[in-house]
């Protein structure tokens, strides 16, 4: 199956779970901003967790499917998808065939970006171990750029999937907008005055409109003070690192973050909450709360359990669907039959006929 981009949308790129292993030469990781949404879409479709999908921002693309058939699952934010002009649901396996057209009405206040996962994944060349687009260095995805009109994408070898299966609500990512972003303090929280750490953990910030795939900038009135200035001898920047530059307002580093940087990092937001942050509209309120590194690891483990529950659910759904489909078939097709039966050691030949 192929996808023809009839209209690209504001920012549509190919992303998987990122380009790990090359940060030492300065190559950013990139990958899906909302990885938990991408993984769930891939599980629904029977893909590898890391299969590439289209990350669609604000206004989605218009996609014509051609050359074969397959299935899609749209996950993440609600960009109001329509298949052949009929509204369709997120988090659900939808069969598609040649000539079908997927469009989006665009953001409606429930998330900023969505993932178009396809059976078999989007097949673009793997660059340094990943299909993720990193636009600034012009690598990955389709020629290292965002998608444009008339681009054509192939899909890989599809796995086993079942049309109609959908991710139950309790297994979806928690997108609650009011929960604080859980943050492990460090590595440089001691470069911030104690009152500054309190300010960080108690203030309400607003997401700045100049946020992007690289970083989410916070706006606010209460400034965080450094002990001896915001500059450090540059070191690494993990996903979710909260930099405090000289103006005293946090910047949360996202998927396309630079590998290293020279501003004090007060803490690191948990990966799940980075994903949640990536779905919030500019202007949305944001708070930070403190967790320990071990609590962070426990949160990651509970996410892994949620993903395993979804895998089980998808598998069971496929099995029960097979049974319920099989039963009416045998009933409707076989109107009469015959068999040998043994009752108390005696053989009988029995014929039967549906009445």
């Amino acid at each position, binding site marked *: 199956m192929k996808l023809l981009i009839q209209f690209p949308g504001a920012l549509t790129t190919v992303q998987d779970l990122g380009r790990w292993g090359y940060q030492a*030469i300065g190559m950013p990781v990139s990958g899906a901003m909302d990885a938990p949404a991408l993984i769930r879409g891939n599980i629904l479709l029977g893909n590898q967790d890391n299969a590439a999908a289209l990350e669609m921002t604000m206004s989605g693309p218009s996609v014509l499917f051609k050359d074969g058939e397959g299935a899609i699952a749209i996950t993440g934010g609600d960009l109001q998808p329509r298949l052949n002009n009929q509204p369709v649901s997120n988090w659900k396996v939808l069969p598609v065939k040649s000539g079908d057209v997927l469009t989006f009405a665009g953001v409606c206040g429930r998330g900023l970006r969505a993932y178009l996962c396809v059976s078999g994944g989007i097949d673009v060349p793997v660059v340094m171990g990943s299909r993720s687009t990193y636009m600034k260095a012009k690598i990955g995805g389709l020629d290292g750029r965002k998608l444009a009109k008339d681009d054509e994408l192939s899909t890989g070898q599809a796995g086993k999937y079942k049309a109609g299966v959908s991710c139950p609500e309790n297994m979806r990512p928690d997108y609650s907008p009011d929960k604080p972003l859980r943050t492990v303090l460090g590595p440089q929280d001691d470069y911030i005055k104690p009152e500054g750490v309190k300010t960080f953990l108690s203030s309400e910030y607003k997401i700045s409109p100049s946020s992007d795939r690289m970083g989410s900038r916070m706006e606010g009135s209460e400034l965080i003070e450094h002990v001896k200035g915001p500059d450090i001898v*540059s070191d690494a920047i993990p996903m979710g*690192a909260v930099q405090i530059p000289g103006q005293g307002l946090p910047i949360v580093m996202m998927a396309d973050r630079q590998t290293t940087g020279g501003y004090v990092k007060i803490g690191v937001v948990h990966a799940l909450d980075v994903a949640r942050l990536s779905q919030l509209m500019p202007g949305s309120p944001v708070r930070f709360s403190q967790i320990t590194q071990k609590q962070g690891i426990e949160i990651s483990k509970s996410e892994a359990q949620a993903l395993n529950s979804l895998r089980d659910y998808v598998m069971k759904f496929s099995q029960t669907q097979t049974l319920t489909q099989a039963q009416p078939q045998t009933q409707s097709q076989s109107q009469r039959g015959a068999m040998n039966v043994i009752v108390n050691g005696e053989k009988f030949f029995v014929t039967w006929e549906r009445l």
Partner: protein
Amino acid sequence: MSEFKAKILPAGETCIFVDFGEIIDMKINACVQALKRALTDEPFEGLLELVPTYRSLSIYFDPLRINLDALYERLNKELAGLDDYNSDNNQAANSIEIHVPVFFGGEFGPDLQDVAEHTKLTVEEVIKRYCGSPLYCFMNGFTPGFPYLGGMDSSLETPRLKNPREYIPANSVAIGGAQAGAYSIASPGGWRIIGRVPYELYDPYREPAVAIQAGMYVTFYPVDMNRYQEIEAQAKSGIYKIEYKQREMTSK
């Protein structure tokens, strides 16, 4: 490593920093490299990626496979064994020197005047000292190919911008605090921009893709606009040769 004690610091649920000190120093960098080698030679369960920087080693791991207590114990053991790191500092042997042309000031170096004012030097003196510094590339980071250069004349130290710029053109040459560097691709950033290199510092389709690499010695030299445009044109048509040469190892 007598003056400072290495610190093991949390950096979220997937990363630990081992920090060797808050200065740019060859010996500290040698410790970073030594710990990196130790963990590369004998990786622990769940290790994903090691990112060496000037002064710290960032250790990325899979939170589902990590035994955090065991990792801290392992790191403490490795650090205890690093005391004799001094003999390890032999990375300068057989190193490469790169000479990099720069047009300083004007539209390409909007912060050159500010650096001169901050350092109380003339613009000419800033350029002279910047080009006269024996720079060493400690690491690539930030974005693909961005070289972090140590060894800049300390009289040129200028703090980063309070509010980083949202756009800096590729190949801009800069000062960030005590460091020198060059933006290898267009990106946001807070360093003071003083000039521009006429060719791509990062070009994924060229060999080498990254012009200034970790371990190289770097000398910038000023060119006028005519020469800048000449080199730019040569680079665009693929005939410009980056000025590398083998570094003569003298007594030091």
